[in-house]
Every structure is written in structure tokens, then in C-alpha cells.
């Protein structure tokens, strides 16, 4: 259940990391967000608050 990140749009600002309600997002070595922990509630905050619209979340396989 990866985060889908548009690397051309993402500025590595970290808003998604700051606001994730389950604190599961981190930036990788290239500065792009990924889900470090498999505990997503798919609340959509990361997608909603991304200032560049660079991020899309997918639903976990078990619930989609």
C-alpha cells in the first residue's frame, strides 16, 4: 500500500510527515515521502494538505 508520489511536483516540504494522523510517513534518502509503518487509516490528510498536490494514497488491499 505505497504512497504514490509525483517526484516532479514534490518539494520535500514534509507537510505530509508533519500532519500524518498515525505518524507513519517519513522522507526517504531522496527526500520523497514513503510509509515507514504499515498502519495507515487512509484518513487522506497527507493527500489533502500536500501544497503541491504531489501525493496520492491508495487503500490497503484488505479494505479496498
Amino acid at each position, binding site marked *: 500500500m505505497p504512497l504514490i508520489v509525483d517526484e516532479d511536483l514534490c518539494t520535500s516540504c514534509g507537510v505530509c510527515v508533519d500532519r500524518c*494522523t498515525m505518524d507513519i510517513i517519513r522522507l526517504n534518502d531522496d527526500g520523497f515521502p514513503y510509509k515507514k509503518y504499515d498502519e495507515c487509516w487512509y484518513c487522506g490528510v497527507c493527500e489533502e494538505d500536500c501544497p503541491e498536490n504531489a501525493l496520492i494514497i491508495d487503500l490497503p488491499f484488505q479494505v479496498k
Partner: protein
Amino acid sequence: MELETDILVIGGGSAGSMAAIVAKEQNPDIDVTIIEKAEINRSGSIALGMDALNIVVQPGITTPELYMNSARIATEGILDYKPSYVMAERSYSILKRLEGWGIRFPRDEENKYISLQVHAKGSFLLEMDSPDLKLVLAEKVKEAGVRVINRTIVTKLLVNNEQVIGAMGFNIRTGEFIVCKAKATILANGGCARFSLPNSGYLYGTFDYPGNAGDGYSLAYRAGAQLTGFEFTQCSPLIKDINCPLLYITLTRGAEVVNALGETIDLEYVSTQNMLKELREGKGPIFIKMNHLPEERIQDIERILFTTERPIQKKFWENRGVDFREGLIELGETEYQLCGGHGLTGIVVNEKAETTLKGLYAAGDVACVPLQHLTGAFVFGEVAAEEAVKFVNNNDLGEVDQNLIKDEEQRLLNVMDNNKSGSISVKDFEYKVRRTISDYAIPPKNEIKLKRFLWWLPRFRDDMKDIQVTDHHELSRYEEIQFILDSAELSVHASLAREESRWGWFHHRTDYPEKDDGNWLKHVVLEKGLKSGEVQTLLVDIENGGEH
């Protein structure tokens, strides 16, 4: 980090944010601190807003007395008069406060608020248009000059002579140990959403925000406060698999619920219990049907569902290829939860939001003001703040036993040290705990079944030494498993104590299948035994406020 504050608010969601704002309104010179497990801009149960304020008594249209009649029916009599009356009485001023902050409440062509009837008597639910509600609350907290400590889990309350004098916890990223001494403490950290296992099998696929793991119930219980309503394990029929809500939004706009036989189910003001009964009687699957609604109504429903509270629904339906104009929406039973907002569970509070411990207040889902919804979180956020400010004016900071602080810090260090190479992942462990809750702690209940959980409980607690904890994020999940276990222990003891069936399916005992008003129109109150350290149950009369 060690700090002193006048009022410590634990949990910066709806109730906690309101409490902090109102405390500063009452006296800007008072020092107010919020400790929040997530990040305050998007935290608690309304991270992406809410579509309704469920209980508003509008002067000239409804009355607090009418609300009390409805609430008594909805709670089957397990309701103290004063707290719910205060909530109803103050609900309209909450509406006006939110309007003043720019939250929109839609009106009809006669300029009246659009209200919907979801209670037996009276139309109390007001539509609200507020995907940004939490951002607005967070902004007001900031403007008020409240100190906010994000990403911090509280693991223990500081107590001295039955008085709460602050709390301890740690930053879930850095592990920094945090001690906050406070003259007054307001618990506002939600119910227990991670109780039984969702049918999808996905641990975090719960209806309510899964960051709420019963933290507040466990903290209050361990500090010596009384709790009640834990036998009322509650679930809802929501969108199958994803467990997102849509009932009020669709059903109050003309949608119907049909069963597998094509029969329309009588909803009696959106009675979720009627729907769940169809499933249990083998008449499922059950569906929400909207294909008879006009296009503009469908668009209205889609606009709300796809922007507010759980907008992920849009993606879910696209993936399943379901269009509300044609397709049916299958409903499934959510996991069971413990909650003061949707249910009857929580810390015992009076109409002043006071718990049974000096210096400790509770508001929102963590407190037992039955079926209070968002209205209750806001009203009791206000009330808790007003009372805490009075308390702070008359009380100095109590003396803190430094050994309590050292012990808690050492306990957390020991887990990090000893559990480094544990053999069970936190996730696997939580899965088995919650599967066992599903097996034994939810309806249908009976004595033997409930006691099976108590057989497992000490084994789980002992096995926690084998959980692998490699960072502070995992340590926070480890702590949450303790909260879940405590919540389940309280629930099972309450379920055993109430030797009757009440609140429909949610406390159905197959060995006591009848409701018994003669003996059981009472609260089952739980507290930690002073000597034994075990859960003690007491039966307490309902406080009727002179009414019947």
C-alpha cells in the same frame, strides 16, 4: 523535558482544543499546555471535519427537556440527568461560537437551520459544512497562546494523595521523556476505537480514529478514577470493508435500507440496532439504496461524503465501480468499540466535568456523557476549562514524588532495552489481543465466554516481554496494547457484573437474556481496588434530577 503548567490538556482533538481555547478566554494569564499524540492541525476524530452537529437545542423549536426524553429512550435509562441536560442547554451557544469562527451551518429558503431528525423525539441534528473544522480549532488554539506539544504519548498520570498533578509520557519519534506538572489536568484523549478486530482483518481499518486506543480509560483507571458503561460494547452498520460512515447523510436524504429479500427495513429514526438485527437473523446482506433519489439529491450526498470526514470513500467506490445512481451500497458490521460519543462508556463525570479524582477533569469521547457526539465534546470542553480555571485559582501545584517520575522513565527505558530482540512483532501481538476480544468480549455474551478472556489476560500481559520494540514508534504501539488490554479488562468485568441484557444487542447476555428494569436500572461503576489492585465493580443508582 520537564515543565510546569497551570492546566494540562491531554489530547488536542475537539474537546481538548475547545478546553484550551476557553481556559485562555477565561484568564489569558493562565498557562495552558496541550499534549497531543498526533499533530494538532489534523488530530482526533474530526481530522477532516464533520458534516453535522448532532445535538443542538434551538430556542423556540426544541427544548432541553425534549432532548432528555429522547436521550432516555436512546440509552434505555442508563443516563444521569444533569450532564446531558447541561449539554443540551449549552448546545446552541456552541453553534453560535462555531459560526463566529466561520463554520457554516446551511439554512433553508426560510432562513432556518437545516435540521434532521435522528432522535425519537425532536429534530436536533444540524447540518454543518466544515471540512476545515480541525484547522480552525488549531488556529484558535495558536491564537490563544496555548503551548502545544505534538507527537507525545502520555503513559501515566502523576498522582499525589488522590489528586492528579500532571502527566508523563514520551515523544514517539525521539523518545524524549516528558514530565508535565500541572495544577489541573483535563483528559480529552478519546475512546477505544481499537477494540475488537474489524471484519476486514486490517488492524487499523476501524470506524473511529485508530489513534484512540483507550489511552484515557487506562490512564484514569490506573490513577484511581471511577469509570462506567464498559459493558456497552457498541458497533455500527457502515460501509462494508472500509467501515466509513454514511448513514445519517444518506438516510436523512431519502435513501432506504433493504435486506437480501428486497424488503425495506423499518429504521425508526436511523436505529442501527434494527439494521444489525437483519444481519444476525440471516436476512443479510443489507444495502443502502439510493437509485430512486433525484440527481440533485445524489449530488448533494456525494459532495458531503467525498469532501468531509472520510473523503477516501470516493476512491473506494471508484475502485469498486459503484455509482450511487444505480448500485447498492453494502453495509457491514464495524468492529466493536468503547466510546462516550457514540456509546455509553467513559470516565465518570458530573455536570462540571469533574472526575472522581481531585484536579482531574474529562471531556469528549473519554468521558461518560452518553451519546454526546461532537456537541458533548465541545460543551464539556468548555465546562472542563471553566471548572479547571476556578480550581487553578484556588490550588497550588501539589508536591510531586520524584520516585514516580524516575520509575516511569526507567520502565520505558527497560522496555526499549529488554524488548529489542523480542520474537513477536507489535502488530502480530495486537492482532491476537484484538482477535481474542472478538472471540470473548463482545456480544452475544455469557459468563463462561467472558471468563475465557480473563483466562487470556494475564498470559497476554506476561507475553508482552516477547514483543519486539526497535524504536519509539513501536514503543508507543506497545503502550497502546496495554491501553487496549486495560479497556478490555474493564469491559469484561462490567459485562460480567450486569446480569441482564440491555441496550439491545450491545450488552446481550445469553445467560440473562431479559432486560430487568426492577434490578438493573443502575450504573455498573468500575475502579481499581486500593488493596487488591484488581478491578472492583459497584452498582450505583441513576441520578434522575428529580425526574422520572
